[in-house]
């Protein structure tokens, strides 16, 4: 009971706090009036960016570690990826600020934010991709090699399809993690009351967790309700992503179970 209670308490508590601000105006008005439309769009834009940057790199790295690497390099690369997973998110935010925003003159921008988020979730994607590929029964790969299929074709045509649900599930959960993050974005994304643009540099991007964080410290019930409403929307996106991830993960388990028979 003690394990189930906090999750329910948090969700109910935030929802209750948000009640006065919930409504369609959240999605149609911007943060300079009563909505959070621009912040929602910004957060979704980050998800897209993370999918492009961390998704491609992470899945590629996972495939390499599972299928192409051998011995010492594999161990070293995996070790450093795990070390990166333990990096405190505020340190990533600090480095993102002093290097990307200041040293590289990107200023608060979409690219700086996406880079910081990507470093954060990259190790997670690498790990889940590698595990998904390793869960494919080895007989499949051996049979393909026995038939003379080149290694890259084996991976693409034989090993990747059954591993795909597992890989996508990892990606989706990584996106869920990045939806709720604030520390790496605090000094890289900035904020704006306008809708986000696709400019990579020099344009500040509004996002949901920032609305939660700043509106908490603005006095007045209206701001507090908006903070909680932004929290509810964040939780909503997150729960949908986690649900998708779970469904895909169970499908992945069924896939591999069927094949090993």
């Amino acid at each position: 009971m003690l394990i189930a209670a906090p999750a329910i308490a948090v969700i109910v508590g935030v929802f209750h706090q948000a009640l006065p601000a919930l409504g369609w105006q959240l999605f149609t008005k911007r943060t300079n009036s009563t909505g959070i439309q621009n912040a929602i769009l910004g957060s979704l834009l980050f998800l897209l960016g993370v999918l492009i940057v961390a998704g491609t790199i992470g899945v590629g790295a996972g495939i390499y570690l599972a299928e192409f690497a051998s011995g010492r390099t594999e161990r070293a690369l995996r070790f450093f990826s795990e070390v990166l997973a333990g990096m405190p998110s505020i340190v990533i935010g600090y480095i993102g600020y002093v290097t990307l925003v200041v040293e590289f003159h990107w200023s608060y921008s979409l690219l700086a934010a996406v880079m910081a988020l990507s470093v954060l979730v990259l190790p997670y994607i690498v790990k889940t991709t590698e595990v998904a590929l390793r869960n494919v029964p080895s007989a499949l790969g051996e049979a393909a090699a026995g038939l003379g299929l080149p290694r890259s074709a084996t991976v693409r045509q034989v090993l990747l399809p059954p591993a795909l649900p597992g890989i996508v599930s990892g990606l989706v959960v990584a996106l869920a993690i990045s939806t709720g993050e604030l520390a790496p974005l605090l000094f890289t994304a900035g904020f704006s009351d306008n809708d986000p643009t696709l400019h990579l540099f020099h344009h500040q991007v509004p996002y949901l967790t920032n609305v939660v964080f700043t509106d908490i410290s603005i006095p007045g019930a209206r701001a507090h309700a908006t903070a909680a409403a932004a929290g509810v929307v964040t939780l909503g996106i997150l729960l949908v992503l986690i649900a998708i991830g779970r469904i895909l993960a169970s499908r992945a388990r069924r896939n591999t179970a069927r094949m090993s028979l």
Partner: protein
Amino acid sequence: MSVAVDRRPDPASAPRLPGRARRLVRAHRARRRARLSELTRPDRVVRGVLLVAAIIPTFALAFLAYQMLKYAYPAIVFNGWHVFTTKFSLGNQYSTAVQVRHGYKAPKGAVYGILPLLFGTLISSLIALFFAVPISVAGAILLVERLPVRVQGFLGIFLELLAGIPSVIFGLWGIYTFGPFLSRTVYRWIADLHIPWLRGPTGAGEGLLTASLVLAVMIIPIIASITRELVRSVPPLAKEGAVALGLTPSETVRFVVIPYIKTGVIAASILGWARALGETIAVLIISGDLLGAYPHSIFDPFSTIATTIASELDSALTDSTGMAVHALAEFGLVLLVVTLLTNLGGRLLTRRFSAAGLPVGRGV
């Protein structure tokens, strides 16, 4: 007269693999060489591209570490060992007076001591562990040993849900709902007992205890989910033996299950601790963020290394000597080393129990 010692291994006593094993090892190496040379040209291209991707996490780590050292260096030289003995103050940033030490300038009156922040970081994370470990372990054991599988799966969903809630939401909940609730009820009652450290004004629910409790809630899913797997891995034969010897269920847990999972629980707690050490946003919102203050009671506001970096970077940027930004980098470096060491330690310990290694350290 000296006796010549033959340091070469004695061929008769050196452990030699039996002939069959040696042949197998040699054949395995030959196969591996053959496999790599069998790569066709497109294979090599694909492998090369993927290798670039695989190196990026390592590169990112090296880049972060290098930049952190580069930015912290002036502060390390300026502070020397004082960083571990003094208090924290950004100094008078409105005057142009500066102090110079070892060739580096800082505003007059500025001292960059990490001690109060380190204290805040350690005390809040340890109080969190104090609450989270017993709850997680008891919960996991009850879940596996007492409840039917269907209910286990159902409660498991809540555990995953809790792991997925982001820290800013925990902050929101802590400051609006949980903190005020505790302050109105439990805290008032505790404070009336007049125990040292546990008395004094309880405020509106911000402060050390609320922050620690929220941290505890955040690390319960990490500790509980690993402990759950550990309890499931206890060999049934040992438990059946205990039952056959006439032990009651609670005695079975005490004498069979707990000894079996002890090391694993320690590893899980270390992983949870690593998470609590690096947590920023939730603590920043709930702690009251009183910069560089030592809490005098468990209800007092305080600050941690992570919250100080988050809240002070803005002010640090106004420092014309630039030393404040470097000092924050030095703090970040200390946090980095502490967190990475705890995290790695926990991971190495858990790897003994779960082959896959758990993707923990960061929500979900």
